[in-house]
């Protein structure tokens, strides 16, 4: 399959400085790609290139497999991009949201309905008649998101879309986004500094450092085996594993992960596939099987495959049907006598399992 959007041998310069160099980047139709990386890495610049707004000094951008040169306007109208700053126009919020539609010549009557739908979806109904210039930071960000989503584009490019939102909104919007993206099959690329958001939303993650793509791959892969320390610093180290839902009842979901079964709290979860995420500090290791009753619902037997010191703690990698990482204190390591090859039981609560729904 040809990529929806692809970069070949791109170089972007500002003055004499080379700020972005991408040998190859393919964004597949329907996928969600998260871009992570330190400040000033070139993430926003990458997005500008993908949005056909910055013509690179060198290299080619391909849309559906063919070079974009000369048809930028037509192609741009199939996309929508939201910048890091919300650049709203000095007109009403409703007019701001309707902007892209009227640029595409949609008649006023038709616009109204769409605009209202998206006003509502981003929780800014009340602001419809207010000026785009007098909004709070978060309100402005919502409006600028609505302004892009209302276009129902086939590609959407978002630059730190949730940075100014309050946490509950951020979470519910992330949920919505997951729903919208999977409903519509929109191709999406978004820049974020929030690992959770990336893990939750993205099919693939690209980590950019110093103007270069340091690692790109499926979310689980990047998160669980970062290519190097720099990447690790930006994605964190977590256990992330693909899983299939086996059954789901009483608010509990049972999943098969690798050779193991894992129970998790459902919390409205409905998909048939998922990524299972576990924080290292949520996993308890024990060397003997216990029979007592606790609120721990998952007990997986396995073998220690690696031990890495990490500050005051130690990260223990174990294969328990799938690879997982637990962080324990040095003293526990000694007391339990854990070494590579030691058989261990990894326990974690169903509530500690974070599920990320996956596609169809």
């Amino acid at each position: 399959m040809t990529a929806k959007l692809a970069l070949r041998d791109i170089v972007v310069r500002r003055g004499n400085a080379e700020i972005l160099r991408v040998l190859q980047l393919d964004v597949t139709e329907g996928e969600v790609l998260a871009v992570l990386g330190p400040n000033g890495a070139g993430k926003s610049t990458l997005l500008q290139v993908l949005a056909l707004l910055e013509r690179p000094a060198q290299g080619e951008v391909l849309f559906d497999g063919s070079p974009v040169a000369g048809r930028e306007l037509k192609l741009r109208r199939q996309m929508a991009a939201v910048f890091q700053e919300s650049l709203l126009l000095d007109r009403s919020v409703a007019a701001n949201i309707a902007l892209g539609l009227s640029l595409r010549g949609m008649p006023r009557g038709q616009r109204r309905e769409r605009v209202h739908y998206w006003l509502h979806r981003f929780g800014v109904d009340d602001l419809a008649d207010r000026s785009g210039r007098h909004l709070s930071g978060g309100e402005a960000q919502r409006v600028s998101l609505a302004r892009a989503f209302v276009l129902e584009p086939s590609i959407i490019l978002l630059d730190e879309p949730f940075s100014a939102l309050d946490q509950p909104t951020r979470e519910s919007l992330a949920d919505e986004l997951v729903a919208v993206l999977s409903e519509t099959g929109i191709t999406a690329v978004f820049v974020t500094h929030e690992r959770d958001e990336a893990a939750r939303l993205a099919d693939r993650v690209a980590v950019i450092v110093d103007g270069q793509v340091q690692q790109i791959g499926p979310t689980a892969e990047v998160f669980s085996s970062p290519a190097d320390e720099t990447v690790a610093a930006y994605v964190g180290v977590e256990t992330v594993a693909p899983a299939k839902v086996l059954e789901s009842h009483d608010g509990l979901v049972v999943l098969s992960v690798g050779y193991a079964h894992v129970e998790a709290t459902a919390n409205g979860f409905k998909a048939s596939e998922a990524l299972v995420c576990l924080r290292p500090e949520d996993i308890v290791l024990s060397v003997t099987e216990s029979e007592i009753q606790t609120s721990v619902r998952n007990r997986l037997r396995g073998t220690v495959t690696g031990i890495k010191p990490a500050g005051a703690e130690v990260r223990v990698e174990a294969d328990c049907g799938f690879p997982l990482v637990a962080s324990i204190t040095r003293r526990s390591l000694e007391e339990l006598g854990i070494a590579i090859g030691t058989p261990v039981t990894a326990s974690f609560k169903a509530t500690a399992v974070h599920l990320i729904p996956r596609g169809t």
Partner: protein
Amino acid sequence: MELIWDGIREAFRIIGTGDREVWSITLRSLLVSGSATLLALIIGISIGALLAFRRFPGRNLAVTLVNTGMGLPPVVVGLVVAIFLWRSGPLGPLGLIYTPAAMVIAQTIIAAPLVTGFTVAALGSLPSRLRPQLYALGASRLQMLWLVLQEARLPLFAAIMAGFGAAVSEVGASLMVGGNLAGETRVLTTAVVLAAQRGEFAPAIALSIILLALVFLINLVLTGVQQRESRS
């Protein structure tokens, strides 16, 4: 001082009695300077947008030239345009000298640098990422221009008024290329000069007041339009 009062009284008398000649001179002023302003807007906004948005070698020089253009003395413009339009001049065969068209040309040249200057000022201070954001929402080049012009509508409004003001208030060029011919190319400013030369100060002031009232009125109308626009 008395003269000013006399002038004001005279102005009201003229407006009240609807003096046909004054009326036709006013209309001519409006038409000539209105056309010149329109042309100056087209030229000034195009060049202004170019200078505000594009970085190219020679841009600084171009800006300096525009600024210099704001100092073009009307008499000089008048003289040069006249030299071109005189029968002996390269454009003589067009027969434009001493016609309203000639005045429109001269006034356009006078007003355009001002409009350009205001356009650069207005567009230059918009946030630099606004334009890419508009493109990102699907704007074509023209739509982008239209949107940023609306965004900068207040200063652009000043550009229109500065352009119209420069055109309508100018006298040196109009005299030179228009000839101040009664019933043909006499406009408010040239009429004021004539009245002043005749020592008829009160009528001169009356005509000035009518001229200023015209400018003020157009301002009011455009302000109204602009505010209605921004509300919708």
